[in-house]
């Protein structure tokens, strides 16, 4: 087995594990192909099981023969391992380094993981595009499911089935695809039942410097407009960035060619800028010696909260166009795989109550992120402690989750799920025993045969035992559109992720338990009272019958 070569010292005794706000643990450190395990071999003490894939970076230092390895994880935790013996420490460090940076996807843990639970509902089969289309068909006959991308040749990052306007044939789709970056021609993202307006998404049009146009593309998006109606194109980039894109063959829709559309530019940052923002934010959160001034100035300089605000604002704008203006929307940025998906998926959470249920949220992530071709593997290869050369890492999905958290916090009763679900998704997007977030698009996942060789995250999450942890006790289904406030004072730092390891959460956990307790007690009473009422009613009728008999 190839891992054995990388593990020079599989086991060291007398290792001390230090974590902030947690008791120190001394025990035996073991390295396996996929895990770093520290076990104290005593009862009641927690063991540490850390996926190598979760390790973002390591540092080592020595005091005499005592070595220390600082392990910085993708879930943002930082732990320290004190290892007696210089050679052991060096061996462990180099093994961790090698095992946490394996290049080959097929060596990743999901391919080796065997679930200890019985898979009742296979998550790989839970979300089929045909099902979603059936729902759509029951509301409108304006759309059709196209197989034009069956072999992924029209657009390698799209799924094989796509929802497009009924009157546009596959040939036109191919032409429109050739006019859009990466072949990502406009497709349906969301249908607003209330008024029939739609959100579509695409990549930027390839107008280039000489203003190329494509009749089929124009026809395609015009087909989604009702007669006499105007639509909005939301370009997630500033006009300046969009202009610059022309020089590289990209660009934006010219008014002259799209007279029925009004284009609005927003300013969502590009992915490399977002990565830089995450690194700065986490650095600020991890330094407890900061004075108040320094903390606030570093928080500001990280720009993270600004990014959250801009993304949410853009999503609100898209939702407003649909619900308030009664106009359809086309959203795109450059590639249409990052900011575009943030905007379309957040707009749906605002507009569609179904997306605020657990199942609906899973569908949303499956449809708007996984099948829509967000390159998870590239974006989540490294997290906030990536100090090496970055390729295409970016916290695009994390920012989306952060925005969902902001809405959840503002509408604590309107979501079926709680913060734990969001944090869990963040963790699994970066390192997981499940195959769901491997690969960058549907085509790649097919090639990796993930559905045959790995377990789906949803198979695990949707087990009743697990679901319980993710349920929001305050949930009261709310069928309204929910408009979050995007004022700076309404947007908070997501402590559950960014301060998670930097304080004790005991009191906050207790508060959560107390909340659960209050609601469960109420349900219990309700059941009791209801059954009493039933009993009473029954007895009364029986009494009446007896009285009648007499």
């Amino acid at each position, binding site marked *: 087995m190839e891992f054995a070569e990388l593990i020079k010292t599989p086991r060291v005794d007398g290792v001390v594990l230090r974590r902030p706000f947690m008791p120190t643990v001394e025990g035996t450190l073991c390295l396996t192909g996929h895990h770093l395990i520290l076990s104290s071999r005593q009862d009641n003490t927690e063991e540490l099981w850390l996926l190598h894939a979760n390790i973002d970076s390591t540092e080592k230092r020595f005091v005499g023969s005592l070595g220390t390895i600082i392990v910085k994880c993708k879930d943002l935790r930082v732990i320290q391992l004190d290892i007696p013996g210089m050679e052991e420490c060096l061996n462990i460090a180099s093994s961790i380094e090698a095992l946490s940076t394996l290049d080959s996807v097929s060596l990743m843990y999901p391919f080796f993981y065997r679930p200890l639970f019985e898979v009742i509902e296979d998550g790989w089969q839970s979300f089929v595009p045909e099902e979603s289309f059936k729902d759509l068909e029951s509301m409108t006959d304006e759309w059709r499911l196209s197989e034009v991308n069956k072999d992924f040749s029209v657009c390698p990052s799209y799924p094989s089935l796509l929802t497009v306007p009924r009157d546009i044939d596959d040939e036109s789709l191919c032409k429109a695809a050739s006019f859009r970056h990466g072949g990502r021609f406009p497709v349906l993202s969301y249908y607003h039942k209330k008024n029939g307006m739609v959100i579509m998404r695409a990549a930027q049009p390839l107008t280039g410097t000489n203003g190329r146009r494509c009749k089929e593309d124009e026809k395609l998006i015009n087909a989604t407009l009702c007669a006499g109606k105007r639509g909005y194109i939301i370009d997630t980039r500033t006009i300046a960035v969009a202009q610059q894109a022309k020089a590289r063959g990209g660009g934006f829709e010219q008014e002259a060619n799209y007279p029925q559309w009004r284009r609005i530019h927003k300013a969502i940052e590009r992915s490399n800028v977002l990565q830089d923002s995450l690194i700065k934010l986490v650095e600020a959160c991890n330094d407890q010696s900061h004075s*108040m001034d320094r903390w606030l100035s570093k928080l*500001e300089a990280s720009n993270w909260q600004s990014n959250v605000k801009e993304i949410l604002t853009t999503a609100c704008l898209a939702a407003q166009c649909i619900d308030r203006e009664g106009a359809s929307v086309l959203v795109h940025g450059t590639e249409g795989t990052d900011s575009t998906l943030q905007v379309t998926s957040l707009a749906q959470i605002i507009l569609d109550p179904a997306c605020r249920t657990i199942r609906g949220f899973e569908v949303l992530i499956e449809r708007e992120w996984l099948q829509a071709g967000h390159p998870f593997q590239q974006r989540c290869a490294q997290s906030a402690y990536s100090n090496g050369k970055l390729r295409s890492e970016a916290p695009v999905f994390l920012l989306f989750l952060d925005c969902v958290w902001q809405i959840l916090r503002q509408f604590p*009763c309107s979501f079926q799920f709680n913060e734990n679900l969001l944090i869990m998704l963040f963790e699994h997007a970066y390192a997981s025993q499940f195959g769901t977030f491997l690969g960058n698009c549907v085509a790649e996942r097919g090639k990796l045969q993930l559905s045959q060789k790995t377990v789906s995250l949803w198979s695990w999450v949707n087990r009743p035992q697990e679901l319980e942890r993710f349920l929001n006790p305050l949930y009261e289904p709310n069928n309204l559109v929910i408009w979050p406030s995007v004022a700076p004072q309404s947007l908070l730092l997501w402590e559950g992720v960014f301060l998670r390891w930097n304080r004790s959460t005991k009191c906050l956990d207790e508060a959560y338990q*107390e909340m659960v307790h209050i609601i469960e007690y*109420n349900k219990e009473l309700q059941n009791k009272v209801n059954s009493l009422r039933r009993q009473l009613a029954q007895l009364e009728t*029986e009494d009446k019958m007896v009285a009648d008999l007499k």
Partner: protein
Amino acid sequence: MEHIRTPKVENVRMIDRLTPRKSTVGTLYLSSTHTIFVENSEAHKETWVLHSLVYNVERLPTNSSGSPLIIRCKNFHVYRLLIPQEKDCLDVLASLTQLSCPERYGELFCFSFNPNLDKELREKAWGFINLKAEFSRMGIPCNLWHVTAANHEYRLCDTYPSELFVPKSASPAVIVGSAKFRSRGRLPVLSYFHRDTSPNLFIASICRSSQPLTGFSARSSDDEQMLQAIMKSNPVSEFMYVVDTRPKLNAMANRAAGKGYENEDHYTNIKLQFIGIENIHVMRNSQQKLIDVGELAAPSMSDFLWGLENSGWLKHIKAVLDAGVFIAKAVAEDGVSVLVHCSDGWDRTAQACSVASVLLDPYYRTIKGLMVLIEKDWVSFGHKFSHRYAHLDGDPKEVSPVMDQFLECVWQLMQQFPCAFEFSERFLIQLHTHIYSCQHGNFIGNCQKERRDLRLQERTHSLWPHLWENRAEYTNPLYRTDHSQTQGVLKPLTTAYCFKFWKGMYGRAEKSVASHQSPADCLNAVREESQQLEEELSSHQEVPREMDAGQGIHMHA
């Protein structure tokens, strides 16, 4: 009434700056005590603004749609009105400017406020908070501490209460001598006695005073004996802390004016600790900057965070909380008594002592307990409410948000310990409003003597029973008396990132920024329902048994 030139203006528009479509049109009325806006809409929604809560009124240049008028309140509400006629706007402005700046105590709202209580009830209401009972609740050992009559008729110190707890071993001469050596006669006296429940059984206490009149070299053997007596009243400890809550530089500068701080060489076994809470002028400016941030028209995230940093507000809140944490730790963990002072001992000292008390004693984290604490550490010990909260038209340099900061420290603690407080954020906000509103007599004047001379108990009503009757509105649903968080000493983390912008307090300049759903309200509703269900269950409990018996007979039949 002579101030009101135009009692009624029609077609006034109340503007919501963030969401213009939420703006409403209605009629504006001026009464002798309130500005009232009644919406023309079917609901005729009313907004009442107490004149005494008005901080300032600003008129913007008249434009084509009318004359804009901005009313800013001391509780950070901002009302933006658009008045069709410029003349009406000028009249309202002139009236409000005068009505919101009373010059004499007699003009304050509390003297005309009449909630229809008979004389007996009113008197009873003033006895609702009883500080004697509070000191006996603390369980002060009477062999070590006693009440001195030295300040009878406020002879020794006119800003202190007449009854003072001092170490029993301090002779009358020492008490008088110590008062003479302290700024404004504010000698060291007991503020809080910590009845320790840990196996250590510490008997440490918190005392308070003003700064000593040391200058560069002066000393007073009476004052030194007084501190010695305080230290000795805690037999197990070998030293005591003197916490000077000022920045050391400020304390040193005071020496030039004949004041200063204790010289560790003259006092035996004291440890001097500076905490560095800034003075009232710095705090006033800081809060103004914070309010400005809340009023920015459409701030970017950077504008907001930069403004927050630039205001320095959270830094000051942290300093106050740090002072409380230091004192609480000394008392509870080290069993060492603490003497707290600043300059006059009525602002920072009150903050530090009361924050420490909240950390130390679960009682002060209850609704009644917080009332008691405010009555004790703030009202009775001569915190200058009327000066600090500008009850009368007076010196603007005396105004400072000292109490605001204390309430915010409590709020910050509530964020870290959500189950530890019986009251909710709403209670703190309500208290804040009442401190400024002058509706009740509790916070009028600057010390006990002044309140007595104003005969407030005969002429005004007390706030406390009113809040107590409505306590259901202020309850924290997560609070349970038997919860572990409720017990014992709170040990908060005071790392910078633990402090938050208090949106419920400072985010009120714009209506539409308000929170949409509150988990606390939702949980309170659930709890109320549970209570009704419990009652229904217990009322049924007897019935089914009879029925069961009846059922048995049926079966036999």
